[in-house]
């Protein structure tokens, strides 16, 4: 019986100039290509009377702009490009993980590093039926196949970029770093007073706590996105393994919703941190 394939880290597919290319990186490249293509298509011919594509993009950008304007007020022009990029990148990465074939199509590497294309989830779903229907000779070969599958290692060709901790950690470090830069450039040297304040002992301890919470932001940014998307993938795999027919559909809808919400929450929190960093402290 084939087992469920769940891997915490993204697996390496091949080496490119000494750099390991993982399946998450490959999927991220695909979603980046889609994003670049879409933006070129839209920004290439902007018309006064918009077409379908331009209409959709204008609605998306406008809606998100209004949402962030409530938080950032007059600083919106400065931070909106960064936040919108974050939203689009995370959104496309999240939903790329829900496409059929992502996580199911892959390579098998056994001890002799032989490679064969097969679908793990499909095997899990149909193995019960095929065992009964196939003739004796065929079932023997099927058993042989399954034995090699069991011994070999299955590597999915695609994996959602957000389900790789490296991607989300990079986004989190970038965001928190930019928050510090924005605070420094807006308030100058007095921004550091938030962290290092020796006017009295209580403020000193509070400053240290602020410094720690700044690092905790990186962790919670990274793990919020990674945890939600990875947990979603595990949930979908397990449900498809338990009840392959019709049961995964509501969970797929739930994961679509979660992907959208997480893509909103990441830049929304970043916007809150930006507005906290650039505003003067009022006590």
């Amino acid at each position, binding site marked *: 019986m084939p087992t469920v394939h769940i891997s*915490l880290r993204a697996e390496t597919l091949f080496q490119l100039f000494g750099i390991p290319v993982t399946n998450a990186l490959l999927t991220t490249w695909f979603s980046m290509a889609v994003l670049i293509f879409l933006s070129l298509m839209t920004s290439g011919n902007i018309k006064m009377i918009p077409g379908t594509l331009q209409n959709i993009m204008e609605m998306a950008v406008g809606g998100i702009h209004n949402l962030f304007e409530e938080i950032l007020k007059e600083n919106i022009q400065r931070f909106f490009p960064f936040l919108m990029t974050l939203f689009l990148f995370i959104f496309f990465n999240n939903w790329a993980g829900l496409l059929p074939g992502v996580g199911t199509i892959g390579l098998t590497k056994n001890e002799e590093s032989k490679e064969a294309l097969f679908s793990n989830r499909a095997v899990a779903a149909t193995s019960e039926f095929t065992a009964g229907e196939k003739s004796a000779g065929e079932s023997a070969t099927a058993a042989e196949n399954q034995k090699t599958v069991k011994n070999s290692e299955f590597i999915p060709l695609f994996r959602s970029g957000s389900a790789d901790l490296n991607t989300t950690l990079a986004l989190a470090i970038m965001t928190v770093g930019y928050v510090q830069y924005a605070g420094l450039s807006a308030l100058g040297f007095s921004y550091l007073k938030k962290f290092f304040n020796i006017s009295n002992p209580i403020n000193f301890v509070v400053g240290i706590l602020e410094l720690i919470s700044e690092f905790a932001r990186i962790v919670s940014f990274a793990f919020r996105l990674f945890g939600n998307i990875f947990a979603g993938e595990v949930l979908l795999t397990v449900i498809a393994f338990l009840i392959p027919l019709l049961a995964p559909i509501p969970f797929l809808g739930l994961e679509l919703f979660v992907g959208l919400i997480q893509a909103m929450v990441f830049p929304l929190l970043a916007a809150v941190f930006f507005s906290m960093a650039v505003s003067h402290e009022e006590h």
Partner: protein
Amino acid sequence: MPEEGLKAIATAIAMGLGAIGPGIGIGILASKALEAIGRNPEAESKIRTTMILGIAFAEAIAIYALVIALIIKFT
């Protein structure tokens, strides 16, 4: 394999106990937000944005539990 069994139990306890607090918190958040929308329906979009932000913060606690569970499970 007693060690593996203990690991499985530890993972389940870490995640299960860690999910209680955020679950209660998110429930309170949503109920208060619904109350607020009921009293002042015009402010719905503002309340929704703030509610989602609050839920994200409450959820972070569950995420920490998930991190611990994953560390126990995979190391």
